[in-house]
């Protein structure tokens, strides 16, 4: 057993542990809640996770470069609202254009973050804490306290959450779920196959070495934030489709959920490592716990945030301690006079 564990890479072990945790959670809740293992529950959770997944993917990219993006919730809200409003005015707009619009707006917001972090050299925690407020205030001003309602949206958008792309047995895979999964897949493949994408990991793994190796670190960081914004925009689109009614508080708190999903999914908070498979599983786990708690009679749903916080803390602590004992086991040769 030990040899098996020793042969597997830390990443694989982490993913396996995550998978087991997910399985365990589902099994546990199936004993507590009636009708848990049903198609309806699957739909609930999958469509709900579909909203968070793109945001989590974008957050993962940013965290891989050793930064953080707290503004994604506000970006999501802005995109959902502006897209909704645009659609209300131009209902004939082609769906693909709508998605492009949503991601475009998100990308612009992300670019603002990116410029400030990469070339302004303002720490990402400060920039995104500020833009969290800035983007939200933009939304309030822009919306002038009006709400987007489903009545003003074209039918195809309102019906989108119900539409299934494909059915696997009794389970329907909704369009929004496919969209989110596609984004996750594209980024995942890109990170492992595109040489340019590897630079995200390099910059986060050792910023000094990245510079020495001729990598343009600021440009890489800028791109990470642009992608994070664009993906938050995609989430905004899916959010708009799912809820229809958009108020100024749309997206509030999503940044924390995305960070939880990413951290639980095995992306190192110190940067340099992580997989999209992990992010996917982390998102599903966090969202499953969230959705299951609302239906669990034993524990009030108001435990959600408390559990979320403890989950993040547990994941980070375990990862930190594991990394430390691994380093100690392997032993490091130092160097000094």
């Amino acid at each position, binding site marked *: 057993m030990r040899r098996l564990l020793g042969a597997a*890479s*830390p990443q694989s072990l982490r993913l396996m542990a995550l998978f087991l945790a997910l399985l365990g959670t589902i099994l546990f809740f199936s004993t507590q809640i009636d009708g848990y293992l049903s198609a309806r529950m699957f739909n609930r959770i999958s469509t709900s996770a579909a909203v968070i997944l793109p945001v989590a993917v974008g957050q993962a990219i940013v965290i891989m470069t050793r930064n953080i993006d707290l503004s994604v919730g506000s970006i999501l809200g802005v995109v959902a609202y502006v897209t909704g409003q645009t659609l209300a005015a131009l209902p004939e707009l082609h769906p693909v254009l709508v998605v492009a619009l949503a991601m475009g707006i998100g990308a612009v917001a992300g670019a603002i973050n990116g410029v400030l972090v990469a070339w302004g050299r303002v720490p990402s925690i400060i920039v995104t804490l500020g833009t969290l407020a800035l983007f939200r205030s933009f939304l309030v001003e822009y919306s002038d306290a009006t709400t987007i309602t489903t009545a003003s949206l074209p039918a195809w958008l309102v019906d989108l959450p119900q539409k299934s792309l494909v059915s696997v047995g009794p389970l329907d895979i909704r369009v929004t779920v496919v969209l989110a999964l596609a984004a996750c897949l594209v980024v995942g493949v890109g990170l*492992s*196959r*595109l*040489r*340019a994408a*590897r630079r995200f*990991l*390099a910059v*986060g*793994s*050792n910023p*000094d*070495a*990245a510079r*020495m*190796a*001729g*990598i343009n670190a600021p440009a890489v960081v800028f791109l990470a934030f642009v992608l994070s914004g664009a993906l938050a925009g995609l989430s905004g689109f899916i959010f708009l489709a799912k809820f229809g009614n958009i108020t100024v508080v749309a997206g509030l708190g999503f940044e924390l959920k995305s960070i939880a999903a990413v951290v639980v999914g095995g992306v*190192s908070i110190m940067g*340099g*490592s992580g997989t999209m498979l992990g992010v996917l599983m982390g998102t599903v786990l966090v969202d499953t716990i969230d959705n299951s708690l609302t239906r669990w009679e034993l524990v009030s749903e108001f435990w959600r945030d408390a559990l979320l916080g403890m989950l993040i803390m547990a994941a980070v602590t375990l990862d930190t301690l594991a990394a430390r004992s*691994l*380093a100690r086991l*392997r*032993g*490091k*040769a*130092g*160097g*000094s*006079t």
Partner: protein
Amino acid sequence: MTQPVLELQGLSKSFAATQALKDMSLSVMPGEIHAIVGENGAGKSTLIKIMTGVHRPDRGEVRVEGRAVQLRSTQEAQAVGVAAIYQEPMVFPDLDVAENIFISNRGLGAVMRWGALYHAAEALVAKLGVTLDVRRAASGLTLAEQQTVEIARALSLQVKVLIMDEPTASLSAHEVERLLSIARALKAQGVAVVYISHRLDEIFRIADRITVIRDGQHISTRPVAEVTEDGMVREMVGRAIESFAVKSAPNPVGEVALSVRGLGRAGVFRDVSFDLAKGEVLCLAGLVGARRTDVGLALFGIAPATEGSIRLHGRETRIGSPGQAMALRIAYVSEDRRKLGLAMTLPIFANISLPSLRRFLRVFGLIDRKAETAMAEGYRAQLDIRAPDTGGEVGKLSGGNQQKVMLAKWLETRPEVLIFDEPTRGIDVGAKAEVHAIIRRLAASGVAIIVISSDLPEVLALADRVLVMREGRQAGLLGIAEATQERVIGLAAGSGAGVAA
């Protein structure tokens, strides 16, 4: 007649007050292993920096394969085929070894082909004649393996000249063998290796030619067959009358203050034993990688010893933290002013009072600013620290004055044992003399002093006794009367032949 792959002609380079290189000329032939030897301060690191494009020479020319080049960055140097590896490798811990190797390559295409990458990496590593798992993350590698990755990286960039700066300083004997065989493999590939090291035995084993430099000047270049160790050492060291008078006899000393037996720290250094008396100056001499600083760090509790015994005034003690060391009246003046010794943005008086802050606290922990400033002013006068007042930022002072502030900081703790690591590194001659005078005065007042120094004349000017270390072990303990430069370097460099401890 083959053309040299790298030629340095008439290089001169000065930094502020010091002239690092004076009319240095050197030629490296393709596929040769060319060793450069010289003492600390002979100009080796400046030479490397010019060859790799970090610095530009004030005068002189660099030629690669006959063509004159102006190197303005390490990237430009790599582009013409000159690369260097240092003691601290730069790897990406989270990426695979194979990816680490090819990270700097520009023309490899947008898409990663992992299979091809792994194969190419394995082939490269095989060319170096060693085994390394290219599919694992670089975080698990030992220092020696990380070095191998860097060498492979240079090879992937089709390097023509690979400079190795003290590559074996932190390696075990087995790893050293590995590195030497890698150097030979590179030679077989037609790559020229510029091998800079103090380890004379290694140099004799792999070098084709040996260049000796001293005080920034080229002294000699000879095929290895024509070089004798004694001759080389003499060339490294031979200089005119010293500006510092050499101590001829030890000063009278008092009782034993510090007694160390078999001191060691696992994997770092071992078997260090000496007695240090009050008023005595013991110099730890040795070359880069001898681990002298680690002895200091162990005595000060930063990196505590794992074996051996320490006795202070006859009583056995364990020193596990700086706080404990300070309670035992041990002080350690670090060799790295910038990173470990001084808080550069804080005022002089704040730096000086830092370890002794408790003495300046009154009721409620309030700092007695008047007493603090008075104390700082006292040191300014006593040590002749050149600053308008003690309220200025330490970072604005010259190197010599910063050194004095560091010394004042530790003197204020009224130490019984003072460990001074590289007391005159990076300061001018005038300040050097002042610092020496201060050390002598301290010894005369009864402080037991350990000076860690790579500056041989300094060692011989200050020491009552010289403890020579080599590769983490004690090579010898000499009284000043019997310590000559040749003898010390002989012990430090490890030839041992004909030189009794």
